[in-house]
């Protein structure tokens, strides 16, 4: 007879504060981190999960494997520079790349709302196939569900991915060392503003195109060059701000970055300025941060810049020896301030 599993009836999350899930719980800010940290991690507790990296890395049959999953719920389904299908491939292969893995196989699960035009589904599927081919992965298993009209927003896609590690580096936030240089692989904030411009019907002189792209090739070249990469992370929800704060927290270090070194395109800055948003908190889908020892920084930049997806790479700051977990930003006029994670979605301001 087996002993019944221990069961805690009380929800670990402060229900008195949030009796219902808010959109902000998925916004990449503090509320989402609390939800993961207090509800999901304790429930599923194990050492692989607790690493809380973009992908989990483990040994299987003598091979180091990276495994990850992500769901894609973007609206609109098509946007300048991409669509739900290409995004569902790029997001997952990039999570594998952030563990330093070569992406190999994906699964694809479709949750389709009744009434979705077949033409739309076909376009998204074709786009997924092209994106998978370009990223060097195969979609080898899948699932299809159709829900009643009104019970889904057109189409949701989940992909899971498996990649192989061909090196022995420990690429993780905990590996970041004092003195490490912080690089970003290109201009930030473009994907989020491309989506927002379409969603809100904002028209600018030229459409802002998403940066959605597979980045594994650029990452693998960094590894093949023998650089001692300490950490990689893609700048998705919550943008650069959330990523820097997560890494500062995990590494227990103060990270210092300089505002004027962070590349932001003119049209993205202007759109953010109009809407009262901070480009450093806006999501990207083809950008990542790299932490390398100072001696490898110049070579890393050179390699990144030689690759089309990271041609705009820049060095933005460094990890300081202070063991307070926080991010300091030197403003354009030279004053220093805290760069704090937002609590949920950014809310456009009044005036």
């Amino acid at each position, binding site marked *: 007879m087996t002993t019944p599993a221990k069961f805690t009836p009380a929800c670990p999350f402060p229900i008195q*504060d949030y009796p*219902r*899930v*808010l*959109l*902000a719980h998925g916004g990449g800010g*503090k*509320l989402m981190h*609390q939800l993961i940290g207090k509800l999901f991690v304790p429930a599923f507790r194990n050492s692989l999960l607790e690493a809380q990296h973009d992908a989990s890395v483990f040994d299987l049959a003598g091979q180091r494997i990276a495994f990850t999953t992500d769901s894609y719920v973007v609206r609109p389904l098509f946007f300048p520079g991409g669509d739900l299908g290409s995004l569902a491939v790029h997001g997952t292969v990039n999570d594998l790349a952030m563990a330093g893995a070569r992406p190999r196989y994906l699964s694809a699960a479709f949750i389709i709302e009744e009434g979705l035009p077949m033409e739309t589904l076909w376009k998204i599927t074709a786009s997924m196939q092209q994106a998978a081919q370009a990223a060097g992965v195969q979609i080898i298993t899948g699932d299809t569900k159709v829900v009643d009209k009104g019970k889904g927003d057109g189409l949701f896609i989940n992909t899971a991915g498996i990649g192989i590690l061909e090196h022995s580096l420990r690429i993780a936030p905990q590996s970041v060392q004092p003195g490490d240089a912080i690089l970003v692989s290109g201009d930030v904030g473009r994907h989020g503003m491309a989506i927002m411009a379409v969603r*809100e019907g*904002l028209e600018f002189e030229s459409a802002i195109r998403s940066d959605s792209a597979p980045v594994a090739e650029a990452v693998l070249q960094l590894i093949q060059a023998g650089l001692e990469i300490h950490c990689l992370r893609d700048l998705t929800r919550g943008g650069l701000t959330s990523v820097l704060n997560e890494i500062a927290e995990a590494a227990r270090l103060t990270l210092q970055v300089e505002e004027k070194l962070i590349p932001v395109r*003119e049209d993205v*800055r*202007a759109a953010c*300025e109009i*809407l*009262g948003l901070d480009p450093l908190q806006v999501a990207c889908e083809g950008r990542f941060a790299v932490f390398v020892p100072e001696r490898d920084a110049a070579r890393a930049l050179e390699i990144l810049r030689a690759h089309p997806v990271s041609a705009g790479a820049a060095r933005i700051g460094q990890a300081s020896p202070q063991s*307070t*977990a*926080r991010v300091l930003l030197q*403003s*354009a*006029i*030279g*004053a*220093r*301030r*805290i760069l*704090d994670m*937002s*609590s*949920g979605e950014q*809310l*456009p*301001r*009044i*005036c």
Partner: protein
Amino acid sequence: MKYLDEYREAGGTHQLARELARITTRPWLLMEVCGGQTHAIVKFGLDELLPRQVTLLHGPGCPVCVTPLELIDSALELAARPDVIFCSFGDMLRVPGSTTDLLAVKAAGGDVRIVYSPLDAVKLAGQNPAREVVFFAVGFETTAPTTAMAVYQAARQGLRNFSLLVSHVLVPPAIEAILDAPDRRVQGFLAAGHVCAVMGWEEYLPLAAKYQVPIVVTGFEPLDILQGVLMCVRQLESGRAEVENQYRRAVRQAGNSPAQQLIREVFQVTPRKWRGIGEIPRSGLGLRDAYAAFDAERKFGLAGRGVAEPAECQSGLVLQGKIKPHECPAFGTRCTPEHPLGATMVSSEGACAAYYRYRREP
């Protein structure tokens, strides 16, 4: 970015800061009225560049923060109705009412939508004739013209399903209330540039004369704000109390007369309660009788309720420049952006939120 980077340039700001240090001989307390200025000051770290004798107090110019609790409760009640599409600027969504906020109402099934302009709400009303569209009209003189235009257009289109929950407030009466306070410490004001772009600066002349305080109409970029401070301190040091215009690239003495006309057409001046401060006479805008059909409070029978503020929240003192955000015992502990006690911790223009985001030391 052109016309923006020029005003955020390090060389110019430091030059102004040096000049300010050179002319300052005594301690001075200035208040920047507008929350947008507070945000810029803390975000760019401008207060670190000021000489130690010059102190900036943060004023009541955050429309989200001063919207009274009972009106937020009315908003929550309306947003929860199944027949209502409730439209608001994004800032208002997280502001706590007595029991909940608009984001939670949305999560519970309320149709709450973020709009960027009240005219979008008018459009929604046209597209959804079977539903009531309510716009939460919040803001100072800056946003009043677009709200007025929305009502004006809704009236012309004969829309019967569009209404406003109005909480428009006016800057000069708030400045006067601060100047009238018996323990007033503020010696000079940076007036809100964008409010003056609409209203001009003539209405500040009697205030400067009556209370003998310098008032400098000031913009929002680092160079603007430092130059505004410099002009204000220069007046104080030489014993002058005048209205000056630092923000000349946007503000004319008479302001924008078509915008003012539109405000007068739709709104009349009314008494208005300010959250954390209390009622200030002639400090708000309410719909004129001719547009009463667009007044959500009348339409849905919401007016005239009284609600008590959480006792622990000292946002009223913060808004009047009597304490700085971090001097409140609840700051950063029991009051954070995730669990705000008051609106000043929510809005990006709220002084408490600005301090929490940029200034808190872990």
